[in-house]
């Protein structure tokens, strides 16, 4: 139970943690206050609690596939908001004025809160099940705390690693990571809709489980980080690639303007 809770919680926390660290790095680049993270964490936790508590009822919606539909909608909404974040960040006309910055922060709050809702609801269900059994309370609490610690640490590491990079490198690496996370969100949404039988199942494109198993620690970390899947279907892969390319396209298109913004900030 101890190792299981570490693995489970760290994987769930990691996804939101990386997303937070990249958005924080982008906000820092725009010289914005980081108080938005706190608002996002509180809002996300409240909604995760509500969703987690009502998971049983939600699951019964749409002929017992409500959970997939709600989760896929959350994932797709996050992807759309990530498109908007990339657009706002990359166009100095928005990122350099007050209104644009407020929209950027409100958007960042929505992305993080939504990411926490989904992962948090799962953690909530895990904990209410495990913590009612006296034998497990100590091991599960300790494991969950360590798991949370691991998830947050990796996020913090990412944040400072990105901070250590110079402007252009930070922009490119941040953008690539952002595109991979958005890609992973789309492929997860496709998988969920397929699980609910709302989308047709397409053939598996490859099987890399012998190279890197999803059971392994690295596999689980990579799943949390960039949505590593050992046996992706054609549709999941297409969704992943398409989304990642859209983010790169939006973010790369206005590169010269970022330089203009940096010069304005430095001046």
């Amino acid at each position: 139970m101890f190792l299981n809770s570490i693995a489970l919680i760290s994987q769930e926390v990691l996804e939101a943690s990386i997303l937070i660290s990249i958005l924080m790095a982008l906000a820092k680049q725009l010289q914005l206050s980081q108080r938005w993270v706190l608002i996002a964490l509180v809002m996300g936790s409240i909604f995760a609690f509500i969703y987690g508590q009502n998971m049983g009822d939600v699951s019964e919606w749409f002929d017992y596939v409500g959970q997939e539909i709600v989760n896929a909608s959350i994932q797709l909404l996050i992807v759309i908001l990530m498109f908007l974040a990339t657009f706002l960040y990359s166009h100095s006309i928005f990122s350099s004025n007050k209104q644009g910055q407020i929209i950027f922060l409100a958007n960042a709050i929505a992305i993080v809160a939504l990411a926490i809702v989904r992962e948090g609801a799962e953690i909530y269900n895990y904990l209410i099940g495990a913590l009612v059994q006296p034998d497990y309370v100590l091991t599960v609490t300790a494991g969950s705390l360590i798991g949370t610690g691991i998830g947050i640490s990796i996020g913090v590491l990412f944040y400072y690693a990105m901070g250590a990079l110079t402007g252009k490198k930070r922009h490119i690496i941040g953008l690539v990571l952002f595109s991979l996370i958005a890609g992973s969100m789309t492929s997860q949404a496709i998988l969920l809709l397929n699980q609910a039988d709302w989308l047709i199942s397409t053939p598996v494109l490859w099987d890399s489980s012998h190279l890197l198993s999803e059971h392994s620690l690295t596999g689980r970390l990579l799943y949390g980080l960039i949505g590593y899947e050992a046996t992706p279907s054609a549709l999941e892969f297409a969704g992943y690639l398409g989304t990642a390319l859209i983010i790169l396209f939006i973010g790369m298109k206005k590169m010269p303007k970022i330089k203009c913004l940096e010069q304005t900030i430095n001046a």
Partner: protein
Amino acid sequence: MINYMKILSWKNFLYLSIGFLTYSSNVIAGPPIIEIEIKDHLFFPSTVEIPANKKIKLLVKNLDPTPEEFESYDLNREKVIAGNRKVIIFIGPLAPGEYPFFGEFYPKTAQGKIVAIE
């Protein structure tokens, strides 16, 4: 003399449509339903045989008061099942072979496998 206008009335058209839809839904039957139960953090049955290359509707009933998460790396499936609730998970079409699954909240005990047979 037969009144053709009466035969072609909208009511008859409606009856015909309902008849056709009922007929077609019987012909194009949904995927077969396979039932799995979770009790005391164990899956019953723990080995489920299904026909290969066919879509299957898994009906997973959680008889425990605590939530469980049905998870399978090989099936690419993951779903929380609240205590004393049931859910539906679509799987397949699968190539012949074995596909292990487990309860992510209690992976030591809650284990099982789907066996797709040609």
